[in-house]
């Protein structure tokens, strides 16, 4: 029997920037040995729009709609961090009712974002059906926002001092109906997808992120809670009315794609819990504080932070006393998760790259700004 010598070499392959599974315009330079990833160098910046620079040339209220477009799958959380920072600079008190309305917006956005995660994660692993179901559920959330603030995705729900408008008629009834429906649908998805053998093989034990590395890279949100670290900004630095609401911080400790997926599914159920409490406890009052026509926060700096569906979204605002901020720094959780991704991919195959990248649920809008 003749033995042939086989010539092998490492190949550097581009994944992206146009690719159905990279969740936006992301380029991954992959050094491969066959199908196995040796090194990965993410290349970002394809969606860089200079938002932080724009912030220096807009008044404080004018900048708000720009924040929607960062993590565009959860516009309220971007709003939330920005207004928190500006309100700290102004020393502005937000009315009770407005705080509850903000939490309603934030949790509805969390639900919408996590539903998109379910949809795209399943789709990446070739379970297309779940995409159609999850997106169908999300349509109700989009309808709710359209009736409330006029937009489905980049909602600009918040204003400095409160929210844009009060809830329209029928909103509370429709939202409550949604809260009753969603857990049942989630049970269906569990049967369809979570307990599916193929899904399990592609996610259990795949893409391990050890907690020490996750913390050294300042990971947050489901990415870090899937590695056993119970860090949630809603508990660490409560904002709005989160300190009065009952909910669990969902954590799993297996550090794999499955853990991160299960955290988000768990959070969907917790968001429903929070929503129901808010709809029930919603007090009378103003939906926004009165603010002067021209906003000039005194010179100083403040850091606003919220628990977005992706993690700690922070907004560091520096004021020089003028009408425009001196600096707006947007701390995006996905940026840190991208930074640690190469370590999560080493040794896995290209098919696993899709699962691992999907499991950290990045949005390029907030990475690139």
């Amino acid at each position, binding site marked *: 029997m003749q033995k042939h010598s086989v010539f092998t070499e490492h190949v550097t392959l581009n994944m992206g920037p146009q690719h159905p599974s990279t969740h936006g315009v992301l380029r991954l330079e992959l050094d491969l040995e066959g199908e196995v990833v040796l090194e990965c160098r993410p290349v*970002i*910046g394809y969606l*860089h729009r*200079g938002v*932080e*620079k724009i912030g*220096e040339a807009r008044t404080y209220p004018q900048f708000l709609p720009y924040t929607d477009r960062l993590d565009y799958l959860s516009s309220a959380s971007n709003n939330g961090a920005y207004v928190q920072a500006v309100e700290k600079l102004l020393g502005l008190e937000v009315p009770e009712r407005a705080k509850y309305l903000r939490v309603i917006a934030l949790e509805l956005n969390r639900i919408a974002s996590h539903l998109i995660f379910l949809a795209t994660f399943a789709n990446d692993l070739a379970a297309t059906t779940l995409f159609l179901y999850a997106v169908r559920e999300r349509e109700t959330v989009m309808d709710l926002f359209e009736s409330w603030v006029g937009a489905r995705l980049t909602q600009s729900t918040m204003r400095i001092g409160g929210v844009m408008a009060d809830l329209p008629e029928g909103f509370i009834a429709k939202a409550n109906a949604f809260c009753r429906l969603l857990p049942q649908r989630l049970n269906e998805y569990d049967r369809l997808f979570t307990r599916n053998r193929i899904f399990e093989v592609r996610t259990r034990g795949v893409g391990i992120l050890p907690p020490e*590395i996750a*913390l*050294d*890279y*300042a990971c947050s949100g489901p990415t870090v809670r899937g590695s056993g*670290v119970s*860090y949630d900004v809603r508990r*660490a*630095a409560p904002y709005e009315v989160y300190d009065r609401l009952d909910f669990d911080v969902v954590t799993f400790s297996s550090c794999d794609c499955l853990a991160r997926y299960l955290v988000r599914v768990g959070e969907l159920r917790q968001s429903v819990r929070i929503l129901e409490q808010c709809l029930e406890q919603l007090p009378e009052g103003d939906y926004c504080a009165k603010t002067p026509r021209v906003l000039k926060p005194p010179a100083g700096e403040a*850091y606003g932070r919220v628990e977005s569906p992706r993690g*700690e979204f*922070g907004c*560091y605002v*520096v004021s*020089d006393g003028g009408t425009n901020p*001196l*600096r707006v*720094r947007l*701390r995006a959780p996905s*940026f*840190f998760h*991208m*930074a*640690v991704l190469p370590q999560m991919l080493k040794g896995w195959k290209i098919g696993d790259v899709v699962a691992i990248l999907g499991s950290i649920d990045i949005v390029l809008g907030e990475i*690139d*700004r």
Partner: protein
Amino acid sequence: MIERLRTQLGDALESAEQVGDELRARIRPAALVAAARLCKENGFTYPCDITAVDTRTELTLVYRLQSLQTKQQVVLSVGVPRSGARVASLSRVYGAAGWLEREVYDLFGIRFEGHPDLRRILLTDDWEGHPLLK
């Protein structure tokens, strides 16, 4: 914690004050690594953010370090010149510093000495200038 910084850094600690959950300390550039290591040893192991601000008179580097146990933050600020600034890299102290310092270099032009891979991250490789400068 303010006391520990004062003891370790002496004169290099230009000012320190507690504002809410934040311990804001301004330090001299030469003391950056020592201050960061001291913070890390004292529980501030989470590198929440590294960025810079152009105040028109200087560039202020801002390091936001968090303690997940106490939920407090230490915010170190370091003043450097608006052009030609060189500062020690914290990439060997905190993992996240790698990408964060690349972004500060990209947008402000501050060079981080000892950084393993200091190159632009958001802008294209052939971009000229550092756009977040005033």
